[in-house]
Structures are given as structure tokens and as C-alpha cells.
């Protein structure tokens, strides 16, 4: 037994890799669609959009790239869908260069359900702008000067939806799809606490715990954390997407990691005697 445990402790990592691969692939191939409930931060996000009067202008900053796409792309689609279905107007922008085409594609997919929506009237893409926080504060005084043209090169003054949009006072809500830095933290610090805009965030699970203080303090109206947050949001909208599809795989892989930690520790403490470790107390 002891020998087995010792061997287990020295297990080749490639064996572990195979386990993880299967724990993701099998549930995707044979889904059971376990049900789940919706948590408060996601409801807050959903309600913030629901409560707006139709026709409100909503700024959506899509700050992510392919590195966090599985978590954020479904959110991005769901947000656009939700906004357009409620008759709101979407002004989108990006602060991450390598994600511009993803945001555009999300809109293209959503527009399949809304063929009547017109570019420039119902939605506009202001495109990417360099400068991170500087862009944010710059928009606080003057959006048209920060974004003189949209992503297609049209002058902002000539775009109907942008009429009367000078700064954050002229948008009803700010939604941020955030893959890291610059992202939700920067929007909170530079824009929310400075201009008092209502701000909702969809972010990667990695950064979600960091944003809980902002929900409690009221700096964020809602939060979608990772693929699970996206799945809950999809459920609220009644429009299943890839996030909900991935939930079984998420469950199984978490159980596998749980078992790994458990078995690893059993093996470690069973053969612990020979290892001497450092003894420093805080």
C-alpha cells in the first residue's frame, strides 16, 4: 500500500493531463444538463438592464481577447442580445487591441436574431483606442474627441446614435466585459467612482473574487463571474448558449480536481515521515 502511495505521489504529470482531458471531453460529448439556480450578482446585472426605459443608450466596453474567450464571448453575446431585445441602443468600444474582431463577431451573431436593427441607429462600434485608463477619463469629458471616428472610419458627428452623446452623463448604463487589465477594476476606479456611472461587469472567474467588494459597496450593479456567471445569465434570458452547454464539463472537471487534491494529500501524509520541512511561524 505504502509503495503504491509513494508511486502515486510520483505519478507522471502526463497521466494527470489525460484525466483532465477526458473529464472535459466526455461531458461535452454526453451532456446531462444538470440544473442550477441564479445567484444575486447575476440577477443584479440582469435587472440593471431590465429596469432601463426602452431606447436607452448603453455603452459596452469589450475588453478581452481570445485568451479568455470561452468565458467572456458567451457573456458578450448575451449582453448584446439582452440589450437589443429590450430596445436599447448599443455603443460598443474596446480597450484591448487583440479582441476587436471578437466583439464585432458577437454582434454579428446576435444580429441574426434582429435583422431589423440598423448600424448607426441601433448600434455602433467605436472601435479600439489605445491608452487604457487615459481613454476612460478622457471619455469622461469628451467621447467624440476621444473617438473621432467609429471603427469603420465614419465621423462620430455623422452617426445618428451618437447625437447628444458627449460624456458619461449621456449613457444610461455602462457594461464592461473584462478579461483583465485594463478592465473592470480600472472602470470602477477611473469612471464609476469619478463620474458616478452605473456600471455592470462580466469578467473572468480569476478576477471575480476581487470584484466582490465593489458589489457590496455599490460600485458595481452586478457581476457575471466566469463561464458559470455567463450560464446563469443565459438561463435568465432563456436563451441557452455555449456557457450553459459547458456546465457539465465544468462540474466534472471540478470534481476531478477535488479528487486530485484529496488523493494527493492522502498519499503525502501516508509517506510523510521521511520528509523534513521548514518550521517558521508567522
Amino acid at each position: 500500500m505504502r509503495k503504491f502511495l509513494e508511486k502515486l505521489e510520483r505519478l507522471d504529470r502526463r497521466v494527470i493531463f489525460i484525466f483532465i482531458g477526458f473529464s472535459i471531453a466526455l461531458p461535452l460529448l454526453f451532456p446531462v444538463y444538470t440544473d442550477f439556480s441564479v445567484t444575486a450578482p447575476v440577477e443584479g446585472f440582469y435587472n440593471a438592464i431590465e429596469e432601463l426605459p426602452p431606447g436607452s443608450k448603453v455603452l459596452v466596453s469589450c475588453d478581452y481577447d481570445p485568451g479568455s474567450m470561452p468565458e467572456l464571448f458567451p457573456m458578450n453575446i448575451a449582453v448584446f442580445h439582452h440589450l437589443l431585445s429590450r430596445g436599447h441602443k448599443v455603443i460598443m468600444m474596446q480597450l484591448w487591441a487583440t479582441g476587436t474582431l471578437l466583439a464585432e463577431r458577437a454582434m454579428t451573431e446576435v444580429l441574426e436574431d434582429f435583422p431589423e436593427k440598423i448600424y448607426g441607429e441601433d448600434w455602433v462600434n467605436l472601435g479600439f483606442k489605445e491608452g487604457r485608463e487615459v481613454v476612460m477619463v478622457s471619455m469622461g469629458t469628451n467621447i467624440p474627441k476621444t473617438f473621432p471616428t467609429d471603427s469603420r472610419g465614419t465621423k462620430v458627428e455623422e452617426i445618428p446614435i451618437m447625437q447628444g452623446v458627449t460624456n458619461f452623463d449621456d449613457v444610461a448604463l455602462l457594461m464592461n466585459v473584462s478579461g483583465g487589465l485594463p478592465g473592470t477594476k480600472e472602470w470602477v476606479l477611473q469612471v464609476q467612482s469619478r463620474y458616478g456611472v452605473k456600471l455592470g461587469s462580466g469578467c473572468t472567474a480569476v478576477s471575480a473574487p476581487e470584484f466582490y467588494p465593489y458589489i457590496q459597496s455599490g460600485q458595481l450593479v452586478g457581476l457575471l463571474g466566469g463561464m458559470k456567471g455567463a450560464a446563469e445569465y443565459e438561463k435568465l434570458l432563456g436563451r441557452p448558449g455555449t456557457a450553459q452547454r459547458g456546465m457539465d464539463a465544468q462540474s466534472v472537471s471540478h470534481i476531478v480536481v477535488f479528487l486530485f487534491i484529496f488523493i494527493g494529500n492522502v498519499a503525502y501524509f501516508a509517506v510523510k515521515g521521511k520528509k523534513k520541512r521548514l518550521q517558521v511561524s508567522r
Partner: protein
Amino acid sequence: MWETIGIWFGAFLTLCIFSFLYKDNPFYKLAEHLFVGISAGYWATLEYHNVFRPNLWDPLTREGRLLLIVPFIFGLLLFSRFTKKYSWLSRWPMALIIGIYAGITIVGYGSGDLILQIHANLLPLWTDNWLTSLNNILLTVGVITGLIYFFFSKEHKGALGAGAKVGIWFLMISFGASFGYTVMSRMSLLIGRVYFLLGTWLHLLE
């Protein structure tokens, strides 16, 4: 047609990267360098189309906003670091950027992460609801003891030591939550790739 070729190409590159799991190999290296090159090229192209043209070149040449020459020159000065003699000039634009970020940091962190966080943490310790009271007490104790742990001007002995000890418990719980969420995040990323390989590429998912 191009779409199909694209999907196969994407699948090939995906497998190239995954081959690193077996060990470092030429396919992985190829894919990695391709990635760095393409994203740098992508970035440069976007800077041209989305910043250089609309924010600098067009207003300068078409609207006669001559003042924009200043940032233009500052931007060009950055490249002086490639020369030996004039490299000191590149400090000017660097100083500008660093100064701006310093100013932004002070205001942003001061308001959003300090004052508003303090405001949000001033909570009544006893209320009609026992759970709310408990939560408020935990929040107050947790933040104060957490700060004690990061207090370096006194030895952590006596009451201060006890406070720091409680503080580290809260920090550890907070790290545990981050660990759980990080596992969640990473698994989601793999789900995305497996979804691509099994669904988009091999059409095995309905």
C-alpha cells in the same frame, strides 16, 4: 471553402500548442513564435487604423489642429532610444506617460479603493437581523485584522499579534476563494478549446 481551410488550420495550430503537454518540441515553438508575431502585427495595425489615423493624422492634416504636432513629436522622440547620442531624449515622452499614469493612479485608487471602500465598510454591528449583524461584525473584524497583518511599525506581539493571526485567517480564506475561482477559469478555457476541436472541427457535438 476558406472557412473550412481556416478551421483545419486552426485545429492544426491548436494541436501544435497542446503538444507542449508531452514535451517542448518544434511544433510548439513554431506555433508560439507565430502567435507572438501575429499578435504584434495585429496590434501595430490597429494602432495605425484606430489611433494614428483618427486621433492624430487626420485632425492634423485635414482640420489644421496644429497643436497635435506636440504629441506627435513626443511620440517620435521615443524612438531616439535606438540611437546612442540622443537616447536621453526618449526620457521626455517616457516621463509624460509615467507622470500621467501616476496622476491617474493617485486619484483612482484614492477614491475607488480607499475612501469608497472605507465608506462601504462602516456598518452597524447590531441590527434586527442576527445574520446581518454577524456578517457586519465579520466584515469589520476581518478588514481591521487584515490591515493589522500588513502593519509593520510594531512587533506582532500581544493583542497586535492576536489580531494579525486572525487577519491571516481571513486572508487565507480569501486566497482559497481565489484558488477555487482560478480552477474554474482555467477549466472553462479548456472547455472552449475542446468544444472547438470536437464541435467546430470534428462535428461530434450536436
